């Protein structure tokens, strides 16, 4: 037992030059990392490492014996919040819970008074949403429709989105291609899908199933 800590650096120094005769410094570092090191080598060490003291909430706060006997320990495991718990904002004005929760009531009224700039100080970081631009005018929409109807091959959705600086989804909302173009595009897409192999089609199917499950709240 005592010899192992002494032997290990010795082994390392021996094995490093033998395995790498070129003996560059980087290569030696790699081989040293590759040598398996035993961290928790025995049961007793693992058990000792995993022995964690219980959370302080499990211990009674006061040392008095009569108070500890009447104490209720409430320490639920972390879990997803229940949807049956209505957020304060969703309570209707007639609900008595709104009047009972004075702290929330005062806080939300203070929120209304304060500006939106001071709001985001202590809140968690915002998820980046895609940029919303409202830059397309009515005339541009008309022009867009005209272009799309006249030559849908040339003025594709992506090209139009690039031209007007808006999202492709907005182009899809505004314009509708001629029927023959739509049919052609659909046939092309079907041909592409027909070339898919088993793995890719299964992956698409599963993605669809996952999306459905997500919208049912079962994922």
């Amino acid at each position, binding site marked *: 037992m005592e010899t192992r800590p002494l032997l290990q650096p010795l082994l390392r120094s021996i094995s490093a030059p033998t395995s790498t005769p070129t003996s560059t410094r980087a290569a030696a570092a790699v081989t040293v990392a590759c040598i398996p090191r035993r961290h928790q080598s025995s049961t007793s060490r693992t058990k000792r490492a995993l022995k964690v003291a219980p959370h302080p909430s499990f211990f009674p706060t006061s040392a008095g014996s009569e108070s500890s006997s009447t104490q209720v320990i409430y320490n639920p495991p972390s879990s997803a919040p229940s949807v*049956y718990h*209505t957020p304060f904002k*969703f309570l209707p004005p007639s609900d008595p819970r709104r009047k009972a929760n004075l702290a929330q009531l005062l806080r939300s009224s203070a929120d209304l008074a304060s500006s939106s700039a001071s709001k985001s100080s202590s809140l968690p*970081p*915002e998820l980046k949403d895609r940029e919303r631009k409202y830059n397309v005018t009515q005339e541009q929409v008309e022009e867009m429709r005209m272009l799309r109807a006249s030559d849908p091959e040339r003025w594709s959705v992506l090209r139009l989105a690039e031209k007007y600086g808006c999202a492709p989804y907005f182009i899809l909302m505004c314009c509708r291609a001629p029927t023959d173009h739509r049919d052609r595009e659909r046939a092309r897409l079907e041909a592409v899908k027909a070339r898919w192999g088993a793995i890719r089609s299964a992956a698409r199917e599963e993605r669809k199933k996952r999306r459905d499950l997500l919208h*049912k*709240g079962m*994922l």
Partner: protein
Amino acid sequence: MKRIRLHRLSSQLLSTTPARSPPSSTRICRAAQISRLQAPLCCQRRWQTTSSEAVLEDPDNMEEIPILPPEEDRITPLPSPPPERALYSAKLAALHARLSLSSKIPLQTLARTLIDPSADADPRFNNANLAFVGASILQYHTSEFLITRYPRLPMAILFSAMKGYSGVPALHQIARAWGVEAAAAPGEEVDPGLLQFSQDKPTVMMSKWGYVRAESKEIQKYKWRRGLSSAVVYDNAFGEMVSEQRQQKTEEREGTPPEVSAARNTKDLVVDNPVGNAHANFVRAVVGAIYLHCGRDAAKTFVKSHVLSRTLDLSNMFEFKTPARELVRLCGREDFDPPVARLLSETGRLSRTPVFVVGIYSGRDLLGEGAASSLNDARVAAAINALKAWYLYSPVDTAVPSDTFMEDAAPYKPAYVDIGEIIS
């Protein structure tokens, strides 16, 4: 051999009793008369004493022997057991005790609730009328329970929840849990404690509110879309379309039909789930019988303890198509700050199994949070949870309107009911 002979005995004897009384009196009324009740017993005793040796000699040609006076030669067996035999059925007594029914409800009535219209088409002897009363009481209590308890439920969920509490599948389960067994085939000689129905005879479907639409045939044939607001007006309590044939049968039943005519009912001769329909009709008929014999409050207590006490997970019934857009609409409608997704916590972003917890905030208020393995999915899950939290709001005081029917009840305070679901 002995067992078979006894069955034959009882069936022959009982068929000779005046089975179908004049239409002025129902079977329950006759059963209440004690002299009539004694009649079959006396007959049996006399028969056993007089002609037992004939049976012992030759049990096979027993049917040929004219045991009873020839003017009562209506040997055609009754479609269902006569109510007089209800007093001697152990199964019925056990069921009566198991349901802790009041002693005001006679066993004959309980026996009548077990006879489906498909077994006995005569409305004076089957449970159709009792089930009609029971269905209306059941659906009334279910709907008032749901609306006062969850005043913001969308209409589609409300219809599904109605079906989940008092629809055919739920009532079938309840009847099974009560320990009611179905007879192999309905008939006069069957124990009256068994549920009597037949799979291939026309029966009556009980959920019969609503109107027949002018375009109902096209809806059935071409699968036309029908909107939810028209379902509120036209359809039955579960949001199912009322079709033409069913309506005909309703008229037929509500009038004075002597028999369910075969010609009219060949269209939907068999309902899609005859077993479930028969069991559900039995439960409804029990509720109707309690209402008739014990009154409104007893029926309400019974419905509450047997139907509304069941657990139905409403939060799993929702399915959203565009939850984020719906939440934006909700916040706009209710004049809240627009919803913002914020990352509450994350782990393993660069690993194969990351977990992101995203919360949807409106102003400083957390509306809902969801966890998923991608940021977008977590955002969608959080929006869904926020919407569910909106829809599944439940007020503190869930007093129902029927509470005011009781004596010395406080005057009814109008319940909060939301203005309606979010349309995105």
